């Protein structure tokens, strides 16, 4: 009895599977096509005009796409073939997108890492000639940290407050003038080249007010550059906070400003911090506005309010244009330092956002 029953059962499931599954490529199909394509491309490389690693790889990818789609079309039918083609295209697009990124990181790492040493991080370029080895970027590191830090101190609060105004207060204002003016200038500022902002600060701060070149002047330029990114990302994040949440807070008898400060902003905090970090990362690499506002320096100046100050981007530019092997190596070292610095800031911001933002269960 039992055997008969189970036999019937087996047959009906296999029928069902046939109906649902259809004919598919074997599991090893993708790998096989891939290997064959690579091999064919290699042979073409050896035997014919196809040349170089990139060329070979490109040919291999093309062969893979054609081979897999064709095989799939004959065995599995049109729908699966299109699916495989689309999947391959998405993967290829992803690879193309990350290749330059990985290449840049790799190059900077390979060229920059050899100059890293305790001395590199603790000394300045004072009395070090471009031709000789040694020296360091301590002065530039201090400059960048102070200038970017001050810029963030100025730019982040102003940007966040402007966004709070745009989202929380502007919709019920009697006149839309102020909010449309803010929106307009934010849009315009997004498009203004950084060198123009540098020129503006140079004219306003140094020529007109007669103040000396200083790291602070650079901070002002960087703060202006940060503003549009901060305003726009904060605005987006605040708009994502559900209306219900604001209303529940108001319904508890919590005043408006406290609702914004304690309920709305904390809920959006993760995104706001990410936006602020992106803007900081963006301005930390700016060179032109620094040259116009604080210029260069080879020695340590830890006072951002007085005298020229070095910074990592201007250090890199200066060392690279000096043109000797030793100075070029230092330039790569500076570039690697800048990247690492931004990564540290970014990781730190993520940690802060996780600790303070929406609590996950």
């Amino acid at each position: 009895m039992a055997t008969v029953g189970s036999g019937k059962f087996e047959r009906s499931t296999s029928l069902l599977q046939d109906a649902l599954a259809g004919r598919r490529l074997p599991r090893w199909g993708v790998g096989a096509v891939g290997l064959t394509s690579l091999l064919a491309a290699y042979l073409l490389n050896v035997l014919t005009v196809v040349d170089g690693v990139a060329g070979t790889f490109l040919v291999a990818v093309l062969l893979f796409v054609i081979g897999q789609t064709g095989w799939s079309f004959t065995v599995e039918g049109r729908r699966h073939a299109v699916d495989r083609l689309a999947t391959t295209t998405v993967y290829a697009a992803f690879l193309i997108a990350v290749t330059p990124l990985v290449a840049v990181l790799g190059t900077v790492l390979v060229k920059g890492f050899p100059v890293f040493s305790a001395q590199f991080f603790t000394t300045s370029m004072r009395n070090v000639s471009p031709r000789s080895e040694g020296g360091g970027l301590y002065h530039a590191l201090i400059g960048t940290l102070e200038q970017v830090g001050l810029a963030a101190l100025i730019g982040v609060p102003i940007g966040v407050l402007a966004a709070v105004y745009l989202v929380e207060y502007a919709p019920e204002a009697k006149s839309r003038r102020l909010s449309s003016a803010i929106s307009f200038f934010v849009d315009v500022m997004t498009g203004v080249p950084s060198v123009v902002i540098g020129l503006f600060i140079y004219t306003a701060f140094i020529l007109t007010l007669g103040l000396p070149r200083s790291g602070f002047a650079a901070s002002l330029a960087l703060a202006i550059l940060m503003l549009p990114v901060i305003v726009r990302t904060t605005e987006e994040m605040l708009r994502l906070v559900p209306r219900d949440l604001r209303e529940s807070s108001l319904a508890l008898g919590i005043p408006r400003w406290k609702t914004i400060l304690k309920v709305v902003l904390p809920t959006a905090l993760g995104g706001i911090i990410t936006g602020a970090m992106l803007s900081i990362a963006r301005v930390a690499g700016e060179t032109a506005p620094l040259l116009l506002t604080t210029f260069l320096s080879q020695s340590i100046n830890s006072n951002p309010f007085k005298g020229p100050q070095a910074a990592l981007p201007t250090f890199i530019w200066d060392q690279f244009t000096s043109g000797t092997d030793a100075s070029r190596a230092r330039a790569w070292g500076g570039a690697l330092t800048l990247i690492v610095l931004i990564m540290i800031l970014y990781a730190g911001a993520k940690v802060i956002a996780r600790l303070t933002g929406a609590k996950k269960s």
Partner: protein
Amino acid sequence: MAKRIDVADLDIYYGSFKAVENVTLAVEPRSVTAFIGPSGCGKSSVLRTLNRLHEVIPGAYITGKVLLDGEDIYSADVDPVNVRRTIGMVFQRPNPFPTMTIRENVTAGLTLDGARRSKAELEQVVEKSLRGANLWDEVKDRLDRPGAGLSGGQQQRLCIARAIAVEPQVLLMDEPCSALDPISTLAIEDLIEQLKLNFTIVIVTHNMQQAARVSETTAFFNLPAIGQPGRLVEIAPTEQIFSNPGEQATEDYISGRFG
């Protein structure tokens, strides 16, 4: 402590759009008043004028009077923050504050109003409010976990606990059970039975049985036609509305012959 509400000649506007017109009704203290009616007839709008939440929508305003124990809550010298402190509200979708723990959610209305309170006092409020919302036993061991980690029904009871923690005198509920399963709905209905001993409750519901089960008084709102303002058709003891309504429209609506 519970207070009565009198609404007189209330018109509700969203900008130039008049959503509700000519509502006059009374809500008795220590009782449950249910608002029923088809979608879009203005039940939520009326409810939100009772704690001055309507006016937080840009361009929204009202004309007419809303009296809380005889005092006009819309008179110029009344602070809406104080009104909302006296008249609490629970929303349709459970919405605990996502950045806060269960404990912080319950005390939010107290800690964010500026007055200082001792830790012990807050502890007491947490337990009392969560007990009041029938949630204490389920969450007492995880008060410091995020409020968003609870089930939907628990979250809604957390929102009720949050609302009663500030000790309002009136509790407004806008379809508090519409996102909940039957068991959680029952839990909330039981809760309403207990709460009405101390609070005046106004509840909006689409569930006719629910209105019949929990309320003493029922107000039926209707839309005369699309694009016209909603109106209050009648308000009467719930038994009468469901057994012997005064208007044909009410009978059509509750017997499902609507349209």
